[in-house]
Structures are given as C-alpha cells and as structure tokens.
C-alpha cells in the first residue's frame, strides 16, 4: 500500500501544481456563471433603432388608446433605470395609422406587405372591424377575420412588439366593450381582480412549543441552489477525474508505463492514481463549496446554503470520481492516440452528462417515483441524489443509503474491469483496443 500512496502523492502534485489546474479551477465557474452574465449583459444590448408599425384599425376606435400607450412607453419604459435619465436600451415603437380599405382589404394587405419588405415598416397590424362586438370564441380558428386582430411581419422571431401590443389593445377593447354595455370599468376591475397564491413551507412546533410561522418559499433560490450542487458535482468530475485519461495516455505514449511497472504492480498503480485524483477532487470540491458558502452568505442568502447535504455531497463526490475515474483510466490505457480516445470517450461523456437532461424534472418533483428511479441509477446517483437531497424537504434516509450501496457496487465493478483493461492495455503500443477487446479483457481478466 505504501507504493499506492507514493503514486497518489505524485499524481496529486502533478495535477494541482500545474497552471492548467489553476486556470480550470477559476475558469469553470466563470464559464458556468459567465454565460449567465453574458446573457444578462447582452439582454439589454438590443437594437434601439425606432420600430415603425402600421396599424389598420377597422373599428376606428382602438388606435388612439394604443397610440397613447406607445407614447407613454417611449417616454418612460425604454430607458435603463426608471424614466428618461438613463441610457436607452429598447427601441421606440412608432405607430402609423393606415385607413382601412373596406372595398379591397386584400389589396391593402399586399401594399402594406410591400412596404414592410421595403423596410418602411417593421410590421403591420390589422384590427378587424367587428372585433369590439364579437363574442369571444373559444377556438381562435373559428373567429372570423372581421372579428380578429392579425399581426403581419417579415421577422417571425422578433416578437417584442407583438407581445407589447396585446396589453394596450386589450385594455382598449375591454374599455370599449364595457362602455358598450354601460358597465363601470372600476366595478368590473374590482370584480375580476385575480388573487395570488402564496408559496409557503410547512409549519412546525418549535422548541418552546409554539407553532412556527410558515416561511415564504423562494422557488428560484431553491432550484438554483440544488442545481448549483449538481453542477458542482459535474464540474469536479470533469476537472478532477477526466484528466486521468490524459495522465494514463501520457504514461503510455511516453513509455513511462513500463518503467513504472518495474516498480509497482498495475493494479496498485491504478489505485494510486485513483486515490491521487480523489484528493484532487476533494480539494476542488472543498474550494468551491467554501467559495460558494462565502458568496451565498455575502449576498444575504445564507439560509439557502445546503449545509445538511455537504457530507453526502463529499461522499458522492469521492464515489463518482472513483467510478468515472476508473473508466477514464481504462480508456486511457486502451487507446494509443488522442483521436481514438475521443471516439470511445463520447458515449462515456453522455453517461456522465445524462443527469443534466432530466435534472429539471427531478428538481420539480424530487419525490416522484420517476425521480427516485432516476436517482437510483448508479451513474446518475451522485448528481441526482444530491439534487433531490438539496431540495426541501429532502428524501427518506434509506434512499441515499441504497443509492450509495448501488454506486459502491458499480464503482467496484468499474475499478475491477478498469484494472484488467489497464493491465493489458497499458503496455500495448501502436494500436488502440476495440471496444469488443476491452470488454473481453474486462470480463475474462
């Protein structure tokens, strides 16, 4: 065992002392968070050129209301911060009223379409003449053209205007319809006001015997924290375990392996590497968790830090790193060039990444049967069980225990198979092993 630790120590130092390690350590959260930051930063960097839209108001009554709303928006809502002081971040919407052509509406639509094509307008809206009177039909397809509103444009992916116009238009419509029936808009508003449903946790009896006041649930924070824990697990696997493949390939391609095997049996060599990488992963995990804790506390969300899953997280982390690490080692030993390794790596990466495909379903219903089954699938357990445990109220204790047992068994199988592949592959030069060969080595020993 002494040799195992000599190898582990070298592996740890070789990994942690490199500049690449530091860079990756810093770059990972930047990349993960960075895309969010870039999205947020880019969100306001839209085209602020005026957008002119033609409105054909068949009713002759709606346009003024919409125009007033557009003017109000142009005055107040398109600047950074509030009011006109800030930088303009959104385009102005300019409306141009076009008289309806009762005799030939198709001709008018063609003319307007041409003007959109020429760039004069962004789009045009046709408000049917009977839209105020028509009873609301349940099926929009059944509403006749005369009683509907249509938005025509040549830029199907730009929907800001289409979304915006709905509200002032419907407000106008509602006002006009109510007026028609002699109803007081204020009374109707009052009568139809929607009420919200508060999202609260459960109450419990505290130490003093009082029944606690339920806490407001912050849905976003709960999801973000749970996702953060899962992403952290993923990152550590990627930063910690994945480089094992390159480390083994280095030993193989630089012909270090045989020198090493003169001093240490292959299985011990592999175990040493795994232990080294577990050390690396725990280092990364601890650094990120401490960093995350500080960040969360500093930003005033300290209550959301999932301290109750930290120990579980570390246990899963170690198991995941050993489980995937041994697979990466086996691949590194079996291939003889980088290109080959990428081919075999792809399916493995899909397995590693797969929890990401289902995490949202799991986080929304952590205690559904589907979530339980998914999180007991050994390769997904470390990430999904952490996820489920992070989301309140957590899961029954037997579930993570069963998960750990299953992961342990899988890990043992992976290490055993990897050891067999490693022993044969590490000395093979010139050609890469086919997957079939690897399976044969793993099974027959």
């Amino acid at each position: 065992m002494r040799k195992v630790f000599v190898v582990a120590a070298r592996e740890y130092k070789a990994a942690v002392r490199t500049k690449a390690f530091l860079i990756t350590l810093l770059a990972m959260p930047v990349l993960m968070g960075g895309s969010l930051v870039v999205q947020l930063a880019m969100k306001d960097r839209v085209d602020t050129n005026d957008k002119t839209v033609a409105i054909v108001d068949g009713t002759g009554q709606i346009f003024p209301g919409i125009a007033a709303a557009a003017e109000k928006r142009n005055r107040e809502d398109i600047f950074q911060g509030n009011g006109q002081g800030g930088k303009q971040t959104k385009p102005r919407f300019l409306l141009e009223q076009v008289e309806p052509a009762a005799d030939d509406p198709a001709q008018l639509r063609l003319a307007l379409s041409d003007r959109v094509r020429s760039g004069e307008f962004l789009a045009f809206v046709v408000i049917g003449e009977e839209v105020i009177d028509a009873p609301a039909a349940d099926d929009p397809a059944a509403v006749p053209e005369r009683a509907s509103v249509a938005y025509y444009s040549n830029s199907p992916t730009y929907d800001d205007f289409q979304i915006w116009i709905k509200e002032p238009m419907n407000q106008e419509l509602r006002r006009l319809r109510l007026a028609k029936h002699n109803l007081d808009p204020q009374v109707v508003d009052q009568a139809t006001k929607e009420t919200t449903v508060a999202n609260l946790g459960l109450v419990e009896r505290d130490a003093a015997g009082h029944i606690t006041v339920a806490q407001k649930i912050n849905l976003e924070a709960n999801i973000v924290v749970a996702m953060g824990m899962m992403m952290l697990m993923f990152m550590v696997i990627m930063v910690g375990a994945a480089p094992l493949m390159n480390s083994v390939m280095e030993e193989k391609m630089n012909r270090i392996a045989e020198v090493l095997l003169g001093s240490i049996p292959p299985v011990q060599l592999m175990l040493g590497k795994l232990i080294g990488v577990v050390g690396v992963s725990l280092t990364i995990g601890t650094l990120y968790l401490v960093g995350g804790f500080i960040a969360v506390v500093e930003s005033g969300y300290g209550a959301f830090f999932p301290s109750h899953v930290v120990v579980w997280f570390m246990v899963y982390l170690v198991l995941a790193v050993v489980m995937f690490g041994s697979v990466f080692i086996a691949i590194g030993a079996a291939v003889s060039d980088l290109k080959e390794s990428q081919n075999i790596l792809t399916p493995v990466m899909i397995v590693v990444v797969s929890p990401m495909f289902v995490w949202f379903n799991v986080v929304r219903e952590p205690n559904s049967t589907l979530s339980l089954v998914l999180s007991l699938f050994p390769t997904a357990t470390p990430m999904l069980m952490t996820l489920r445990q992070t989301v309140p109220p957590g899961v029954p204790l037997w579930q993570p225990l069963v998960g750990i047992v299953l992961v342990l068994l899988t890990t043992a199988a992976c290490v055993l198979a990897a050891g067999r592949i490693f022993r044969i592959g590490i000395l093979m030069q010139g050609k890469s092993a086919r997957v079939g060969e690897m399976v044969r080595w793993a099974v027959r020993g």
Partner: protein
Amino acid sequence: MVNIVELEGITKTFGHHVAVNQLSLAVPQGSIYGFIGPNGSGKTTTIRMIMRIHYPDPGSGPIRVLGREGYGAANDRIGYLPEERGLYKKMRVRDVLRFYAELKGRTDFKRAVDGWLDRMDLSDWANKKVETLSKGMSQKVQFISAVIAEPELIILDEPFSGLDPVNSDVLRREVLELRKRGATVIFSTHDMTVAERMCDFIFMIYKGKKVLDGTLASIQERYGHDTLRVKVEGNGFDPHGIAGVLSVNDFGQLQELRIGPDTDTQEVLEALMDRGRVTHFELATPSLHDIFVRIAGPEAWKASEVSPPVEAAHA
C-alpha cells in the same frame, strides 16, 4: 554458484506468433549476462517474462528470480530499465528520481539521488524539467531511476542505444561498479563490441529460440579458428574469389575472410600477396559480430555447420 534468474522450458506465444520457444536460461549471481539477437527475436519478451510483465504460456516451466518463483515486476530488489522508456516530462529531474527511489521503498533517497546526479554529471540539471533534457541526458536519468534503490538484480534493455561514446563510457563504468558491489546485471544490446568486452556470459536468441549461451570463449571455441583478418594495400583490392575462402566480410580498411575447415592458410596468403601488399594477416576465432551475422544474417541460409538457426527459421 547461485543462480539469480532461472528459466526452464519457457514458451510465450502472442496469437499465432511464437515469441519465445522452449527457452531455458540460468544467470549466475554477480555475473554480467548479455542478451543479443536480431530485432524481434524475443529478447524483450524474455526480459518482460523475467520481470513478470508478461506471463509464459501454460505448460511452461518455472521462472525463478532471486531464488523464488512468482517474484516479479514490482520487486524492490530488481532494477529495470525497459527498452521503451520515458519519464514524466513536466517533472523536475530530482523529483522524478526521488519518486522512483520512494516507489522502490528507499527512505534515505535525498542523498542517494544527489550522489547519482553528481556521478552522472547531471547536478546542473537537477532542478530542470525533464522535457529540457537531451536524449542522452534523459537516458542517464532513466538509468539512475532503475538503479537508485541499489537493486540486487539489474535488467537493462538496450541501455547503450543512442548514447555518445562519452556517456556510453560513463554508463559502462557505473554498470561495472554496480556489479563490483554485488549486483547481477542482465542487459540486451545490439552492440557486439560492448557485449564482447563487458559480458561474462552471452546469450543469443533467434526467432524465439536460444542459439548461443555461454562465455565468449566457449562460444568462439565452437567455431574454431576459421577467420582470417587481413589488411592489404593496393588500389582496387578485391578479396573475393580466392580458393578456400567461403565468405568475405569487407570493413573497408580490414577484411575478414572465413575459410573452410581444410583450407591451407599459406595458400590464401599467397593469393593475397598476388593481389596487393599484405600489411596484416591474422588467424583468429570469429568475432561475436561475425557469429551473430552467421546465425541471423542472410548468409545463414548457406551456412553448413551452424544449422540450428536455419531450422528454427523454418520451424
């Protein structure tokens, strides 16, 4: 005499290829044992079996190393320098050597490492990364890594290949020094002169079969005094076509003539004198180089008395 390594009837096949065929070998303690043979003849496979990196086919006899069966690769008492060897490029020279010393179970490795670096003229490079070393220097570092733990048995696969004469001498000096301190040395080489000069015993393997095994003298004895080493001055001297000369090995300045068992050397001398001015004429046993070529060279087909390798070739 105690044998440090003993192989009995060892066979190793890879697929359909018989790499080593019914090989037996005994390496006495304290000896320097040279493994020779053409590329792909089974030297490295034999060495790897001694190291327990490869396992012999079922049905093979035992391999005893340091008096025990099943003692193998990871033995701290064996130092191994494989033919295919490399070092961690990003590590510093001193760290690499300390790593190997530690791996071999040495605890007082700091002094030993610095001592070796000093002796091998590498002290200035101790803190440099391996990737900055020249080929010769990294080969010396590899050698140190194999012997740093003062092993009793040292197995070196092609230790001299690619070394310049100066480094070659340094390495030879250290190998002999290790032997003087009691180590047994097995090394493979393509350099017949090195094998002749350094080895107590020479073992040649050809197409997986042992074809030579013994002291240099005993090997040469088998071939007798059948070689004439001659130097003849004169433009366009051509030693071919002399009666009684079976083959000619022309080195340019020196020619080796192989003569038949009944050839009269006086007649050969006379024929040579007809062709130019003879400045050197020596009746000798064949060199190891010559023996090697006779067994493994293209001429082997025609060889009369050395038939086993030819059989082996068709086996």
